């Protein structure tokens, strides 16, 4: 075991724990437990808001998978990853102040609360709660596997032990501290991600003898690596551009991001978060993927993309600094997982249990149930991640795009198009998720674009047509 590397990781975990305890002390004297536990009492400031959005969004793929792909594909993959710059400002600007005002009026704690009040439909609520629980549970399990693998590779512990450490550290602060702990730890984790990216980028450029040198090494190995088209010319402009839907504008439909757009304190916080968020997300995405490309001349011949980033950090940095930098992917995974866990728990407790099973539950019993459900979910994910069933792996493939296709139009048009109604929302969700799964299975990447594009267009069509066709019916029902 390499203690110089492990020590900074331990310090990082201890800080995260302390934040959890601090946040739980804040929860003790709360008289609206739901609002506080699942939404932090809507009092996030600008910096924390920006960080929690960025860190929730930036996951294992930004730090492990992404640099690995950039290592193989070259600068074309960095270009593709820069579509994510839009997430820094687009989500907050689009949902913006209207979402903040409307969700306050609705007293909404979850995204599903918003949909429930907006569409007044049990089916909308059940469909959306169900897709959140299924898809995000699968996504969460996949991230846990990533977190455990990372610990396994850094410490040399067995997979089970690594998973246990990872699970225990996340569970403790999420269960006791709720949203506030998640958001504040996200801010720390986001900062670690930012600093880690910076250190590793600088060290990599130095180790490679400067940018000019690195680029000419790449061009000497394979000129395609420094074109926008990928190592074998396979990255077509339309394919790369279609990622603007998947990881750019479509992110508006991801419930774990959307819920953050209702958690901030005031307009100033939002303004600040727009600027900070754009800087942080742009820097991390540009930096990490560029690191992946630059790793190629320094460490040629790596077979498994996921190992590029950890191997590079150990190669170009002294051990203690590598430990700090390797806390970054750890932070990225934890900050995604903690948000997902809390969101799935809120879907079970608030959207299903309180809405339909026991609407008159007391503050105290809600508290017990929230903590209980979060714990049980955490243990379930742990068990799943021990040896992930095929179903989970399969579902995880759809988690990102599937949720976007399900929620983007019911949320955005629900906010801005008054004629949209529950029939439009239901058809949009069914068509979005259904067509995504069908395209993925039978006709992936239609017309050379990422699979997510057509389902998002189809769900838009379904929303508009569904709403217009039933306009009369809804108006008549309201008159009665």
């Amino acid at each position, binding site marked *: 075991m390499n203690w110089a590397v492990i020590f900074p990781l331990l310090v990082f975990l201890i800080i995260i724990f302390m934040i959890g305890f601090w946040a739980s002390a804040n929860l003790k004297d709360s008289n609206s437990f739901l609002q506080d536990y699942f939404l932090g009492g809507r009092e996030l400031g600008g910096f924390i808001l920006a960080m929690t959005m960025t860190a929730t969004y930036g996951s294992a793929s930004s730090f492990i998978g992404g640099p690995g792909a950039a290592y193989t594909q070259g*600068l074309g993959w*960095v*270009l593709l990853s*820069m*579509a994510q*710059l*839009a997430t*820094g*400002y*687009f989500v*907050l*600007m*689009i*949902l*913006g*102040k*209207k979402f*903040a*005002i*409307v969700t*306050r*009026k*609705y*007293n909404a704690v979850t995204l599903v609360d918003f949909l429930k*009040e907006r569409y*007044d439909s049990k089916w909308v609520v059940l469909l959306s709660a169900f897709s959140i629980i299924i898809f995000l549970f699968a996504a969460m399990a996949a991230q846990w596997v990533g977190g455990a693998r990372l610990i396994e590779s850094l410490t040399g512990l067995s997979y089970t032990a690594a998973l246990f450490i990872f699970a225990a550290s996340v569970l403790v602060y999420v269960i006791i501290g709720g949203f506030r702990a998640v958001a504040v730890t996200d801010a720390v984790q986001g900062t670690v991600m930012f600093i880690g990216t910076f250190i590793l980028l600088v060290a990599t450029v130095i180790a490679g003898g*400067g*940018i*000019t*040198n*690195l*680029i000419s090494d790449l*061009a000497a190995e394979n*000129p*395609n690596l*420094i*074109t*926008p*088209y990928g190592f074998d010319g396979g990255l077509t*402009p339309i394919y790369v*551009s279609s990622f*603007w839907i998947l990881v*750019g*504008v479509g992110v508006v439909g991801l419930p774990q991001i959307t819920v953050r757009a209702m958690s901030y304190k*005031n*307009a*100033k916080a939002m*303004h600040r978060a*727009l*600027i900070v968020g*754009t*800087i942080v997300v*742009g*820097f991390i995405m*540009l930096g990490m993927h560029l690191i992946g490309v630059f790793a190629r001349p320094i460490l040629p011949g790596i077979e498994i993309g996921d190992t590029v980033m950890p191997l590079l950090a150990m190669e170009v940095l002294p051990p203690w600094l590598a430990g700090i930098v390797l806390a970054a992917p750890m932070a990225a995974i934890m900050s995604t997982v903690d948000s997902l866990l809390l969101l799935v728990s809120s879907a079970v407790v608030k959207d299903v249990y309180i809405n339909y099973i026991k609407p008159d539950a007391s503050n105290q019993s809600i508290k017990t149930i929230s903590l209980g459900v979060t714990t049980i979910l955490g243990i379930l994910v742990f068990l799943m991640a021990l040896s992930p069933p095929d179903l989970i792996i399969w579902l995880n493939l759809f988690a990102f795009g599937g949720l976007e296709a399900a929620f983007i139009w019911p949320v955005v048009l629900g906010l*801005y198009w*008054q004629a949209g*109604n529950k029939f439009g929302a239901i058809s949009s969700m069914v068509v979005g998720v259904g067509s995504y799964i069908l395209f993925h299975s039978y006709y992936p990447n239609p017309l050379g674009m990422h699979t997510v594009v057509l389902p998002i267009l189809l769900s838009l069509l379904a929303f508009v047509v569904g709403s217009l066709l039933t306009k009369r019916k*809804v108006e008549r029902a*309201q008159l009665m």
Partner: protein
Amino acid sequence: MVYMKHGINQKDPRFKIAHREAWIGVILVIINFVWWYGFAYGLGSDSVQDYTYVFGLPAWFFYSCVGGFILMVVLVSFAVKFFFKDVPFEDEGGES
């Protein structure tokens, strides 16, 4: 009418501000995309021997990705400073 539910008045002047800001978001993302696409495939489609370099990076990459990032930070800051308005989120009257 359904729109008046929960005391939400679509004529609320704050919504006018919110709608304008949402359109700014759409405009910014279009600028972002056009800039990104234009430089990447405009300059990047030359053959590699003809590439020019800025700070050691191929020019297409520098302008599209590095330049595009800086441009967006500037544009977002500018939009927030000059076009975004500070409005209260709670109603005076104060249901929380």
